[in-house]
C-alpha cells in the first residue's frame, strides 16, 4: 500500500496530528471531496463559534482571493513606444504631498509611505524600525491609534500624525511636532469599525499613553466624538489648521466603500491629501467577518477616486495615496498608472521587518500557527517581536537591523516600479497612465476600467 490508498491516508492523518508542517492536500485520498461552500476553513470556524460563543478576532487583511493588481499587465515598449535606458535616463520618483492649503507640504523621495499602525498594536521596537527604514530612503511613516512615541518621532524624518475617533494620546504638542495630520474616518480592513486592542497588549506603557486601565480590553469609538459628517468635518479641519497655524497638510483616510462620493466629500471638506485603503488593507485586530465581508477591493476603488477627483478638477491637486495589498514594485506602478500619486504599505512593511519569517517557524508552531500563516496579532505573542508588547519577544526585533531591512524593501519596490515605468517610456513614475495597462479577466477590466487584453473592451464603459 504505497502511493494511494489506506497506508498513505493513515500516514497523512498521523502526519497532521504530530507535525503540521504542511497544509497541502497532496496526500488526500481521491474520492474525498471538499465542499466549496462548507470548506475546511468554514467547518473549523463554525465549530470554533460553537465552542466559544464569540466571534473570531484576528489581524492581517482580507485573505480570500480578490481581483487585484496581479490581474493587470503593463504594455511595454513597442514600435510606437520607446523605453528609457536604465541608469543614464532617469525615471524620477519624487512626490509632493499636501500643497493644496498647507504652507509646509511633504517632499518625499519615493512615492511609497508607511501606513498608520499604532504603538500598542506594534512594539516600540517595530515603530522605531519603521521610522529608521523610512528615513533612510526619504519617505514618511504614520502614527496609529495610540498616539505618537518619542522613538518614532525621533527616528522618522517625516511623520504623519493620525487623528482618530478614539483620540488616544492626542495632544497639541505632538500635533505641532508632526509633519502632517491624517484624519481617519476608516480603514480598508474595517470601514466603520474602531480600533481594537485586547488586554494582553495593554501594558503599563500602552495604558499610560491611551489613558486606560492596564490589562483591560480596549473598547473603541467608531465615530469621531465631536463631529459627524463632511459638513462638520470641514469645521474640524479648520480648527486643526488653526491650531497648527496652517502649516501642516491635512490628510483624510477612508476605507474603500462609497469611494466616489467619499472622495468628493473629502475634497469639499478641505482635504489636502486623500488616503484610500482598499479591503485588502491590514489591521492588528478586528472581527474576521469585518475583514472579509466589508469594503471594496483596492483595484475597484482607485478609478472611482480618480474619477471623482477629475470631475472636480482636483486630480494631482489633492493628492491620492492608495493602500491595501501593495506588495511589490508592480503594484506600486499599477496603482500609480491608475492615478495614485503615491502608495502606502502596512502589511508588506511588517513582513519586511520579519513578520511571518521562517526563522521563527518553531515558535509559530508552538502557538498553533505556522510561518506564512500567522495572523493572530491580537494575542500579542508575535514570535518576530513585532505585534507584541511582551518585553522578551519584542527584543527579538533589532530596530537598526529592521530599519535596514525595510529600507532595502522600499528600494526594491522603487527600482521595480522604475523598471516597469522605463519599459513604458516614462521618465517619471507619475507619467504612468491607465492606457499603459490591460486586464487578464473581465472583473479586473471592469473594476480597473482598462481593456481586457487583446480587446478594446472595458465592461460597462466601451464596446468590444
Amino acid at each position: 500500500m504505497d502511493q494511494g490508498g489506506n497506508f498513505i491516508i493513515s500516514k497523512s492523518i498521523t502526519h497532521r496530528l504530530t507535525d503540521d508542517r504542511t497544509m497541502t492536500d497532496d496526500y488526500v485520498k481521491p474520492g474525498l471531496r471538499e465542499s466549496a461552500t462548507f470548506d475546511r476553513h468554514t467547518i473549523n470556524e463554525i465549530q470554533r463559534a460553537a465552542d466559544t460563543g464569540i466571534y473570531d478576532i484576528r489581524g492581517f487583511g482580507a485573505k480570500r482571493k480578490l481581483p487585484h493588481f496581479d490581474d493587470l499587465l503593463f504594455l511595454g515598449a513597442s514600435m510606437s513606444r520607446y523605453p528609457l535606458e536604465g541608469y543614464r535616463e532617469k525615471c524620477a520618483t519624487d512626490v509632493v504631498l499636501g500643497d493644496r492649503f498647507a504652507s509646509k507640504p511633504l517632499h518625499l523621495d519615493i512615492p511609497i509611505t508607511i501606513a498608520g499602525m499604532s504603538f500598542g498594536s506594534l512594539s516600540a521596537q517595530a515603530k522605531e524600525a519603521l521610522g529608521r527604514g523610512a528615513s533612510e530612503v526619504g519617505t514618511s511613516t504614520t502614527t496609529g491609534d495610540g498616539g505618537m512615541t518619542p522613538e518614532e518621532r525621533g527616528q522618522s524624518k517625516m511623520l504623519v500624525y493620525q487623528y482618530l475617533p478614539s483620540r488616544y494620546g492626542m495632544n497639541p504638542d505632538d500635533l505641532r511636532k508632526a509633519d502632517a495630520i491624517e484624519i481617519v474616518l476608516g480603514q480598508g480592513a474595517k470601514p466603520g469599525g474602531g480600533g481594537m486592542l485586547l488586554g494582553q497588549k495593554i501594558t503599563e506603557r500602552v495604558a499610560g499613553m491611551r489613558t486606560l486601565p492596564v490589562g483591560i480590553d480596549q473598547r473603541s469609538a467608531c465615530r469621531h466624538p465631536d463631529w459627524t459628517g463632511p459638513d462638520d468635518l470641514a469645521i474640524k479641519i479648520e480648527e486643526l489648521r488653526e491650531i497648527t497655524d496652517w502649516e501642516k497638510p491635512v490628510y483624510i483616510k477612508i476605507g474603500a466603500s462609497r469611494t466616489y462620493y467619499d472622495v468628493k466629500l473629502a475634497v469639499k471638506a478641505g482635504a489636502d491629501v486623500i488616503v484610500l485603503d482598499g479591503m485588502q488593507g491590514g489591521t492588528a485586530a478586528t472581527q474576521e467577518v469585518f475583514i472579509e465581508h466589508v469594503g471594496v477591493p483596492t483595484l475597484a476603488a482607485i478609478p472611482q477616486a480618480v474619477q471623482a477627483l477629475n470631475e472636480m478638477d482636483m486630480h494631482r491637486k489633492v493628492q491620492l495615496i492608495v493602500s491595501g495589498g501593495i506588495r511589490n514594485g508592480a503594484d506600486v506602478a499599477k496603482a500609480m498608472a491608475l492615478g495614485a500619486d503615491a502608495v502606502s504599505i502596512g502589511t508588506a512593511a511588517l513582513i519586511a521587518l520579519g513578520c511571518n519569517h521562517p526563522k521563527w517557524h518553531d515558535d509559530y508552531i508552538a502557538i498553533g500557527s505556522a510561518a506564512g500563516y500567522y495572523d493572530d496579532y491580537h494575542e500579542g505573542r508575535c514570535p518576530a517581536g513585532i505585534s507584541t508588547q511582551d518585553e522578551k519577544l519584542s527584543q527579538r526585533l533589532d530596530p537598526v537591523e529592521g530599519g535596514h531591512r525595510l529600507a532595502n524593501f522600499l528600494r526594491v519596490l522603487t527600482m521595480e516600479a522604475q523598471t516597469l515605468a522605463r519599459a513604458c517610456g516614462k521618465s517619471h513614475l507619475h507619467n504612468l497612465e491607465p492606457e499603459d495597462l490591460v486586464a487578464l479577466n473581465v472583473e479586473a477590466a471592469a473594476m480597473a476600467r482598462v481593456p481586457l487584453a487583446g480587446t478594446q473592451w472595458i465592461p460597462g464603459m466601451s464596446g468590444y
Partner: protein
Amino acid sequence: MCGIVGLYLKNLELETQLGELFSPMLASMSERGPDSAGFAIYGDEVPGDQIKITLQHEDTAFDWAGVARAIGEELEHQPVWFQNATAAVFKLKTSETMAREYFARLAPEAMIMSVGRSIEILKGVGLPQEIIERFNLPSMQGTHIIGHTRMATESAVSMAGSHPFSTGMDLCLVHNGSLSNYNWLRMRLQKYGIHFETENDSEVAAGYLTWRLREGDTLEQALKAGLKDLDGFYTFAIGTRDGFAVIRDPIACKPAVLAETNDYVAMASEYRALVHLPNIENARVWEPEPARVYVWERGSKLGMVA
C-alpha cells in the same frame, strides 16, 4: 451634508423684510453646502378656491406666456402668473390634481416645485450666493421661509436633488444628515403611489411625510412615526402653510440651534447664520432636544408640541 435655515415672523410688520433678513442666513451656510441651494417662501396667500403652483425650467427663455395662454383656454380664465429667473409662479382657480394634469400635458418639460396656497419653492445648482442673486431673494416678502444649502453625499448634484422637497400642499422638507434605509423605504412608498424624481435620501423622507399625512396623521404624528421608520442621522425642518417644524433624530449628531425674540423664531445649523438678525444679542438661544417635535404656527400655541 448641508446647512438648513428657517425664519418665522411673529411680528408681521417685518413681512416686507423677510427676504432681506433671510439672505445672509442662507449665504452664511455656503461652506456647509456649496453645491446647490433652495428655499421655500410663504406669503401672498391665494384665496381658498385657488392654488399657487411654482415650476422651474432651466432655460429662462422658456415660453411661460404660451403655457399660461394654453392653460387659460382650458380653465376659461387667464391665470395670474409671473416669472422669476428659472422659475414661474401660477395662480389658478382649480384643484391640485387638475393643475398637475394641465401642466403635465401643456408643459411637460417644466418641473413642478411646489403646490399650495402660500408656498413658493425656488432652488437651483450653484453657490448659495448665486441662488440668492438669481431669484433676487432680498427683495422677497412673506410670513416665513425655510432654506437649505447642499453638500451632495450619495446622489448627484442637480436641481431636482436640491432641497426643499415638496411633500404636499404648502408642505416641504429640508434635511441635514444622512439616512441609511432610504432605498427600502423608497420601494415601499412607490407602492403606495408616491412618486420620486431622484436617488436622494432626503426626497424619501419628504415622500414618507407625504404618505403619513395622506394617511391622516397630523404633522406631529407623522414626524413621530418617522423617528421609528427613518433610520439614520437627521435634523429636519418642515415648512407648513402657517409656520414651520423642527425635529432631530434620537442620536442627534447633526447640529441645530434656535433663536427666539418677540419678533421672530429662527432656526439654523450653526449659530453663525443668525448673527445678523435684529436684536439677536438679546434672543433666547437654545438647541432642540433629540426626538422631539417643535412647531411654530400662526393661530396655535407656539413652541414645543410633543
